């Protein structure tokens, strides 16, 4: 397994957001985490990236324990995240936004190459490379967020609610790119509220409910699951 999360707990002041969650991610394909708002999905990704303090449990990535490490060390190990709400840097240009993703890298020619390949994925960003990121539309901002994460040359990509606020057409476009990325050899953890979409893309899925994994299994199995259908797929 590329990533193994063992029984982690996360607390925000006194409120427990994760109560002993374990997941595993193989070195290829898409693993999705679905669940309602407030179930702890984003917290899970924040914990993986070192943004949320893990109070108990362990996170192992490629044979190394990474919980308790600062975010920059985790990025350096190869875990990149496109966070919820996109969180692009509004007063940086598109290109500068993308280049911040390569902050830890010093292989200049490679960076230029990767930048070209991001522009290859998102030709629209290439047209707007010198524009302030705050002037972009929601979909374009999502592209910047994903492109920026790719610029770190990740070995694992975390996507938090990429569909949020996007019209279905736009999301289809993004989904196609995610599939491309996975085909390119980077495994993805996809966190989604839109269970329909997520289960369509993923191989394996976890259902998170109030800070615990309530169900897990192959995505197609979960799609058929009674509980999941009722709770997340609109009957």
């Amino acid at each position, binding site marked *: 397994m590329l990533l193994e999360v063992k029984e982690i*707990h996360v607390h925000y002041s006194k409120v427990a957001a994760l109560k002993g969650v374990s997941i595993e991610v193989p070195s290829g394909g898409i693993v999705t985490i679905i669940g309602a708002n407030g179930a702890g999905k984003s917290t899970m990704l924040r914990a993986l990236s070192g943004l949320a303090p893990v109070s108990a449990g362990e996170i192992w990535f490629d044979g190394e324990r990474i919980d308790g490490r600062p975010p920059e060390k985790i990025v350096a190990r190869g875990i990149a995240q496109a966070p919820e709400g996109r969180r692009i840097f509004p007063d940086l240009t598109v290109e500068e936004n993308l280049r911040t993703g390569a902050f830890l890298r010093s292989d200049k020619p490679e960076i230029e190459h990767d930048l070209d390949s991001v522009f290859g994925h998102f030709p629209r960003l290439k047209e707007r490379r010198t524009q302030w990121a705050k002037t972009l539309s929601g979909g374009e901002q999502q592209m910047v967020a994903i492109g920026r994460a790719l610029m770190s040359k990740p070995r694992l990509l975390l996507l938090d609610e990429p569909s949020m606020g996007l019209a279905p057409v736009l999301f289809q476009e993004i989904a196609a790119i995610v599939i491309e990325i996975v085909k390119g050899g980077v495994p993805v953890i996809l966190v989604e509220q839109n269970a329909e979409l997520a289960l369509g893309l993923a191989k394996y899925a976890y259902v998170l409910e109030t800070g615990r994994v309530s169900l897990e299994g192959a995505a197609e199995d979960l799609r058929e699951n009674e509980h999941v259908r009722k709770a997340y797929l609109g009957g």
Partner: protein
Amino acid sequence: MPNRKTNLSSWALGTALVAGLIVLPHLLSFSQREIAVLLIINVLLVASYRLMTLTGEWSLGHVVIMGVGAYASALFSKSLGVPVPLSMLLGAGTAAGLAAILSFPLFRMKGFYFLIGSFAAGEVIRLIWKYFTNPFGGAKGLKLIPSFPDINLGFADISFFEPENYYYLCLVVVGLSLFILYRIEASRIGLTFHAIHWQDKLAEAVSVDTFRYRTLAFVLASFFAGLSGTLYAHYIGTVNPTRFDVEEMVYVLIWAIVGGTATFCGPILGVVVLTIINEIILRALGLDTVRPMIYGGILIASVLFLPDGLESLGPKLKRLFAGKRPSGQLEETT
């Protein structure tokens, strides 16, 4: 329920506190009584500041507002011959009235901008004091401000020039004010202030006029800040623009933050503890030149090691004595 028990113990604590405050001057040296008078005036100042902060707005003009009360009361009594107790009320009222006017430009701003805006407004008021020698006395300010009139009880003459007597006067005025401030906070008004602090949009949506309530908090806080200013003016007998400058304001901020702002008592605790340290302990050690350095070190240590203020010390100590672990970990949260 532990309610009755806590009620009883808080009654006992309260009685002990009041008794302590009453006998306090007799335990102090003469100059310490002087310090006690100034301290109790500052207690009112910082408690009124807390009321202001309930709505979430931090002002840098509060000390200037205190000065407005002081100047107004001084001028009412000195130039217009208004009897001092009345002029004190008028002075506090003037501070409140000015706050009501200032709220129109100032509450266009929020948060950090309000902080800075209140600073600018305060500086403008101070410049007005400086440049209008008549009636404000210019840079030298006002002096020979009439003092609180002596009371003749027949058998005894109470002179409020004596720090001990003025202490009791302040104790009554400040005690009453604190009671009112406390009642405000505990009432629905306080609830509404808090509501505005945490979610002003939501409060608006359920018919809370946030501008009016912010103004109310500002006006009330200013009234009591002004009152503390009048207590100061008629005791010290002089006011000047420098006395109310931003450096003094910084001290109020320090008291509030070092004390902690989560509870009514936090800022009061802050002013009491820091005043005792700075004015009594450090002076007694004879460390005149290095006193500011030590004070600075104490400030840093307190925000580093007591981020929730001195007020958080109480529960911490309680837990320590109860032998509990400082924070229950997993079992509490499952």
